[in-house]
């Protein structure tokens, strides 16, 4: 035994310690990976020894390697061993390693509970300290539950060193094991007045975090915090308290009033910039939350603005940045106070730091008024020319475009020329925006039309100068506006002939289709103007020449690949040919041609439709057809009383017809859905889409002729499918309920015969489809009591389709279908965000707030709402849990109901069908950047082209090349990952060799493909 120990310690002399490892890695820059792998082998040997010192040294090195990004989870058990060493020097190494490597999923954590409890109660304060520190990193719900009491006891430990740590750890414990909050809270509150400032600060920290999550519960502590704020001298604590007040004031305006004075005192007295900044920020927040119209607070605003000015003038860039940041908050409520510092903000546009320039621009955005517009615009125009940095530049143009409009005519004139000037800049992304602004201004402001038309004519004339790289950066959108303005307001043109000629140049045919279409249409308008002009001057020769020009040039557009261009061009060409004939007979045609375009196109306000008066006798709320059933459910009760007599007469007669009609419509809808490639019927499994659903053979995808592979990209829209479906309640139960309802109704004397029975449930075969997870309706959400008066029967189907947008935003369209007999309203859609996928909520909404669904659902009606999610990593499929809350309104009651669902974001749904040519494809495969993986599917019994069609359809691939029973396929993720497949088939066995630059994405996509085929 003794010999073994001696031998062990001799061995140890040759072991590397951490220092040697760090040095070694530095000295092996060339073959670092190889060196590290030998080190890991050594470490594995060391871990096998009994000597705890050797093990601790090994674990210490592992901690370093873990930090470098090596997975050391295999050593978790050894880490626990070192943690349980009785020597503090080793114990702390173990705890350090655990705090760096362990997380909730580490299973050996279960083994540590007793060890940690022992350490927590150790007489040595550092043992306790190190255990607490470690716990803060890897506490799991189980640990939190088991140790909550021990930690709570430590909150009253004699040593402040332990107390402060215990208090802070409690926050993590609360998060993991919320039940502990109630018993621990009194003690936590007590710690706010702990004699040790460190403990006090820890308690403030914890309460601030808790209050941020749920401010309401902590309002009662406000007086205590108020006392602390006026007495504490610790800036760290003050900052936290002030932050806390910032969170509380929106709930309690009286608190805000009280705060202003001490805060302004602090602003005056403190020398710490961080505290000053915090105070200013909170004062701003308080003033925003207080009702406006409090003149006596203008002094506080002035003070804040002044202090911020000092920050912005400071040579320290950090202060400048924060100053501008805070200034923009004031701008929202007190623009005037900020405007007086315009000079300073304009100066910041010249700053060397792009982030400061962006902040300044942000501010200018909100500061523009009639008076200072010209000055700001001038300054900005100067900047556009010399601006560096693309973000900044785009932002700058955006500012010019959107904000600096809508003042007086003079300004608009200037605005038009600014827009024109902007188009000359290369590399802008805002072509579309500029175009819509131009249209907007020209249509709305008559006075400037002449000027605008002249400018636009110039632009059209010079279009060829810009066409070079225009198409790529989207500036050509501007030509869309230009052509339209010139055509519509052609009476203002000085030389319509020339503009007409410019619009019919062959180069135009290279523009995008929608712009060409506008060109063609407006060429016709111009033609009318030209004719009128010439006939007015009785210059028939010139008029005929113009017609000839059109007849010559239009055929180019007739051949366009764009249908709309083609249609308009051929229509107009025929017209012109006819006019030409008339002209040759010397018939005056100008009047008639102009009549084609007579009348002014007026801008329509978004609200216009609402303002149209309802014609007398038209009741918009009345049903055109009877609703599927129980139409009275959406009537208010008193209304139903008044309408009773009438319903008695009319309704029964209609019922039968309506049921037939409904059945017919349902059938028609099913047919339509079956034929619509963008609507996929939902079914518990995707296989059913093919086999069970009626009429599904008509889905075009099955018939796609893959010999024309590039046609496949037509599909991407149709397939991002996510679906949720509420499990149907058992039919018997439903029937039973129906009967009961009927009884009830008769009892209430509504006098409505209702023979429909449960038909509505049977008829609407819930549309059931791909990828989407089914979640059972929680029991309590159903009216479980049979005597319950509530007749609602919330059978709904939600179809969710996800369409992918740019970047990492995913638009999910959800179809809400009310399958119940009751009226559903106040629907709120909420999803529990994951770290990776977040529902985008409007500004100002909390991270757990639901989104209001912007419509109500009468029985049997379906509607679609769209929700945007931002997704960070797309390599893993995601399931998000969500809840839909809604109010079920029935004849005599309205109840809150809730429906849980799951949103399944498959990896496939992040793929976008992207065509790829075979040479590019070959290059991609040769590049060697792609990792490969493969998949074998046995017993696939379908024609090869069906197989490919299925992969294309369900997984958004396009076929690159197909040779016999072998095909290469390609797709691309929204984040630009390439996914390549080589699909081969022989004897019912399909092998897929796949390559992708992101192995985990590939793995998941293959899994999903496998899933698709396993359901065949």
């Amino acid at each position, binding site marked *: 035994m003794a010999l073994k120990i001696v031998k062990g310690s001799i061995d140890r002399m040759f072991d590397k310690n*951490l*220092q040697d490892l*760090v*040095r070694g890695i530095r000295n092996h820059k060339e073959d670092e990976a190889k060196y590290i792998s030998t080190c890991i082998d050594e470490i594995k040997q060391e871990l096998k020894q009994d000597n705890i010192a050797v093990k601790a040294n090994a674990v*210490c090195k592992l*901690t*370093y390697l*873990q*930090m*470098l*990004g090596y*997975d050391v989870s295999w050593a978790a058990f050894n880490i626990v061993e070192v943690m349980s060493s009785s020597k*503090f*020097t080793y114990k*702390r190494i173990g705890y*350090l390693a655990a*705090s*760096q490597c362990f*997380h*909730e999923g580490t299973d050996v954590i279960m083994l540590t509970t007793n060890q940690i409890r022992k350490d927590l109660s150790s007489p040595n304060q*550092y043992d306790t*300290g190190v255990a*607490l*520190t470690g716990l*803060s*990193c890897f506490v799991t719900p189980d640990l939190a539950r088991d140790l909550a009491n021990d930690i709570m006891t430590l909150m009253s430990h004699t040593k402040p*060193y332990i107390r*402060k*740590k215990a208090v*802070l*750890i409690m*926050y*993590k414990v609360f998060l993991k094991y919320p039940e502990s909050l109630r018993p621990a809270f009194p003690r936590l509150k007590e710690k706010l007045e702990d004699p040790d400032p*460190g403990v006090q*600060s*820890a308690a403030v*920290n*914890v309460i601030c*975090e808790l209050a*941020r999550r749920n401010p309401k519960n902590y309002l009662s502590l406000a007086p205590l915090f108020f006392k602390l704020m006026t007495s504490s001298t610790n*800036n*760290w604590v003050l*900052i936290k308290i002030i*932050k806390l007040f910032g969170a509380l004031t929106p709930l309690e305006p009286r608190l805000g009033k009280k705060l202003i004075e001490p805060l302004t005192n602090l602003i005056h007295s403190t020398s710490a*910039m*961080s505290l000053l*900044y*915090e105070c200013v920020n909170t004062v701003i927040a308080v003033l925003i939350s207080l009702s406006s119209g409090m003149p006596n607070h203008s002094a506080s605003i002035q003070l804040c603005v002044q202090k911020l000015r000092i920050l912005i003038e400071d040579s320290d*860039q*950090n202060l*400048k*940045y*924060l100053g501008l940041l805070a200034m923009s908050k004031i701008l929202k409520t007190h623009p005037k106070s900020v405007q007086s510092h315009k000079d300073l903000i304009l100066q910041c546009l010249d700053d*060397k*730091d*792009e*982030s*400061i320039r962006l902040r300044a621009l942000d501010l200018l955005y909100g500061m523009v008024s009639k008076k200072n517009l010209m000055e700001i615009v001038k300054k900005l125009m100067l900047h556009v020319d010399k601006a560096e940095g693309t973000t900044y530049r785009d932002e700058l143009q955006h500012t010019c475009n959107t904000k600096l409009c809508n003042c007086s005519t003079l300004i608009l004139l200037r605005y038009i020329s600014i827009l024109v000037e902007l188009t000359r800049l290369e590399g802008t992304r805002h072509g579309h925006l500029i175009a819509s602004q131009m249209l907007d201004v020209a249509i709305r402001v008559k006075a400037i039309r002449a000027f605008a038309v002249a400018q636009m004519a110039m632009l059209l004339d010079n279009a060829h100068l810009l066409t070079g790289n225009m198409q790529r950066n989207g500036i050509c959108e501007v030509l869309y506006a230009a052509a339209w303005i010139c055509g519509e307001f052609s009476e203002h043109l000085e030389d319509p002939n020339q503009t007409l000629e410019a619009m019919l140049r062959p180069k135009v045919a290279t523009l995008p289709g929608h712009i060409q279409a506008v060109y063609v249409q407006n060429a016709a308008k111009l033609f009318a103007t030209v004719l009128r002009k010439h006939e007015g001057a009785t210059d028939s020769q010139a008029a005929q020449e113009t017609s000839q020009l059109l007849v010559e040039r239009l055929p180019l557009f007739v051949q366009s690949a764009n249908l709309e261009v083609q249609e308009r061009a051929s229509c107009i060409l025929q017209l012109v040919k006819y006019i030409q004939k008339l002209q040759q007979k010397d018939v005056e045609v100008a009047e008639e041609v102009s009549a084609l375009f007579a009348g002014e196109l007026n801008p329509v306000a978004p609200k216009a439709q609402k303002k149209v008066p309802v014609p007398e006798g038209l009741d918009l709320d009345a049903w055109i057809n009877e609703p599927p059933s129980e139409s009275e459910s959406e009537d208010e009760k008193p209304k139903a009383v008044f309408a009773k007599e009438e319903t008695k007469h009319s309704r029964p007669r209609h019922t039968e017809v309506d049921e037939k009609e409904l059945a017919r419509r349902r059938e028609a809808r099913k047919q339509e859905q079956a034929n619509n490639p963008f609507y996929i019927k939902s079914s518990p499994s995707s296989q059913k889409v093919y086999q069970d659903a009626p009429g599904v053979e008509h889905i075009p995808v099955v018939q796609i002729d893959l010999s024309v592979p590039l046609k496949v990209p037509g599909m991407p829209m149709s397939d991002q499918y996510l679906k949720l479906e509420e499990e149907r309640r058992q039919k018997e139960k439903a029937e039973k309920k129906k009967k009961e309802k009927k009884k009830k109704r008769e009892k209430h004397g509504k006098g409505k015969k209702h023979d429909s029975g449960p038909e509505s449930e049977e008829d609407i075969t819930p549309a059931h489809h791909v990828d989407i997870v089914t979640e059972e309706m929680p029991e309590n959400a159903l009216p479980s009591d049979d005597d319950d008066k509530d007749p609602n029967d919330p059978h709904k189907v939600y179809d969710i389709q996800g369409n992918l947008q740019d970047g990492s935003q995913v638009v999910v369209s959800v179809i809400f279908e009310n399958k119940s007999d009751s009226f559903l309203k106040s629907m709120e859609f909420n999803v529990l965000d994951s770290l990776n996928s977040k529902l985008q909520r409007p500004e100002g909404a909390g991270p757990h707030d639901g989104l209001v669904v912007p419509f109500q659902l009468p029985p049997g009606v379906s509607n679609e709402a769209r929700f945007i999610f931002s997704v*960070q*990593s797309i390599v893993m499929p995601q399931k998000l849990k969500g809840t839909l809350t809604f109010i079920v309104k029935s004849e005599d009651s309205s109840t809150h109901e809730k429906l849980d669902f799951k949103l399944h974001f498959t990896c496939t749904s992040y793929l976008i069908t992207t065509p790829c040519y075979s040479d590019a494809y070959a290059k991609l495969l040769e590049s060697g950047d792609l990792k490969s993986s493969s998949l074998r599917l046995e017993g696939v019994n379908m024609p090869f082209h069906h197989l490919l069609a299925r992969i294309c359809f369900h997984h958004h691939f396009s076929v690159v090349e197909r040779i016999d029973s072998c095909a290469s396929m390609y797709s691309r993720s929204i984040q630009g990952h390439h996914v390549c497949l080589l699909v081969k088939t022989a004897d019912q066995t399909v092998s897929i060799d796949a390559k992708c630059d992101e192995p985990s994405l590939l793995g998941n996509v293959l899994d999903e493909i496998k899933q698709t085929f396993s359901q065949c």
Partner: protein
Amino acid sequence: MIKFLLMVNKQGQTRLSKYYEHVDIGKRAVLEADVVKGCLFRKKEECSFVEYKDYKLVYRQYAALFIVVGITDNENELSIYELVHNFVEVLDKYFSRVIMFNLDKVHIILDEMILNGHVVETNKNRILAPLLALDKMAES
């Protein structure tokens, strides 16, 4: 609260990382690379605050070493900026030699200062007390 603290050298290699909320080891590399990109290439005359995804980065450069702290939106940037300096002063006070070889001790210091993503101690003597006690233990 503080989400993570990184010590990165000028070449962008991570020298020390501490996460106060678990981040998958696979994702750490990506995050660290992003953070390095966001901070290291900024010029001296640019401000030390960078907006990055959901949080803000506060960084400071000391010779060839960058210290980057990721914080949530509700944290005071300036106070974290001061905290970084405080941390460096403590390191300076304790270490006479290269700190790179004593990263485990840097961790001890850091754990004394920041716990659970919150500042827990800023007094230099109190921060160093456990470390000095440990040294004494090792000597005996």
